[in-house]
């Protein structure tokens, strides 16, 4: 049973999209915590 080109591309593109958005999400969370004074 071989993975199709579509399935392979969907898995990799979703993973890469999530990974690309993660730094932005972390920085947004950091700014939110910093503004609320709850970084530490």
């Amino acid at each position, binding site marked *: 049973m071989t993975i199709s080109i579509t399935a*392979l591309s969907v898995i990799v593109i979703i993973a890469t999209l999530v990974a690309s958005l993660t730094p932005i999400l972390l920085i947004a969370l950091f700014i939110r915590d910093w503004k609320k004074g709850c970084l530490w």
Partner: protein
Amino acid sequence: MTGLDDPILPTSIAWGLLAAFSVLWVVLGWWLGRRNKTAEDHMLAGRNVGLALATATAMATWVTANTTMTAPQLALQLGVWGMLGYSLGALGLILFAPLARRIRELMPEGFTSGDFIRLRYGKFTWRVFLVVSLIYAFGWLVSMAMAGGVLINALAGIDYRVGMTVILTVCVLYTLLGGLRAVIGTDFIQTVIIIAGAAFIAWLTIDKVGFEAIHFNLMEERPELLNLLFPAAIMFLFNNLLFGVGEIFHSNVWWSRAFAFGRNVGFRAYLFGGLLWLPIPIVAGFIALATPALGLNVPAADMVGPLVAAEVLGLTGAIVVFIVVFAALASSLDSLLAATSDLVTRDIYRGHIRPQASEQHQFHATKVIVVLLGLVTWLAASYRGELPIVGSLAELLYFTGAFVASAIWPIVAGLYWQRANPQGAAWSMILGSGIGLASYFLIGFYVAALVGAAVSLAVMVLSTWLMPRPFDWGRLARPDGEVVA
């Protein structure tokens, strides 16, 4: 692990990057730790770490050199299941989320995983746990230091011992100066660097090579890598899952964070950390599938990631890989140094040598212990191959598999099962580790964790079923309280 004949990055550029990032981490560590006044500040960063820093440190610590270098190797050897199986390591973080909340609720003033075992199960089980936990922690420390030397050598041609010494010294310095606050602060930047770097390389590989060429060439040259019923890969998936869960559930690296994260932060941080970690091995691993399309000859499977990056991106790719690998190594080494020094300070020094040690005394002791740990790690990593066990990274990690897997059930039962038998917990770790190690030598490395966990589960369940011992949860709220031996 073997290097390449020609390093992919000029040595002069590698030295410049090493120097720049070393200065950044040490200065940041000093700055973050400048207000640490007590052992609690140093060991637990004030016990109120917010969601952003907590999520990033959970991710960064779990992204090791293995994630960035071994994920492509596994994709090259085991195909699609190799990268998907590695990404299931995220389940360890996700499953630890409810445990982190329970730990914080039961032990609002706890310091280490050793505190929990001592109060929950008594001194005998505590000592068994310390042996298991310290063997694992030291094995991981040495393997990370070795990985540092090997990778820096392979990527830039810098001598193994020099590279290993640089990365270990930098991590010891900033952990010494800033404690857990420095570790968590640097982890945030390291996480952003690692994930952005890995995603950047993946997008360019997709753009320059394309899925059609990758799929077509794999079907022609390595069709087994696209096979969803690849038996070796499916076995790897379960072994990796169990190993990861065992590593996270028992290690003080994760417990110290559960104590350090603010109230109501631990559950969300581990859950988000796990979900966001899940795609990283796929992103890092996928690029290895492009090797047939690129016509690359891969002399060492564990160097396939850097090779593809350098082929697709040239010098820029080599620089990105070097920075990502350095960040991944530092983010795990610093966490291990901090958490292991806490465990040694709290459970060995204060628990066994100087029970009356004051808060201030522990503050100084933990700093001395970080330096000593760094020194012992350096000695073991310097003489790799000349020590009986410290042969290679993989051997060392799989060797600890039996130990970590045998600690899963005593931890889970101790947190949730009010009648868990304390002697049963000790014997589940002893027999699980012993029989797991025997299977490592008699059958193969790939069964050590599986056998260790199975034996440990059987002993824990049988002992509690036959001899239940009720426990008062309230005793966990006082970490300095007396225990029933």
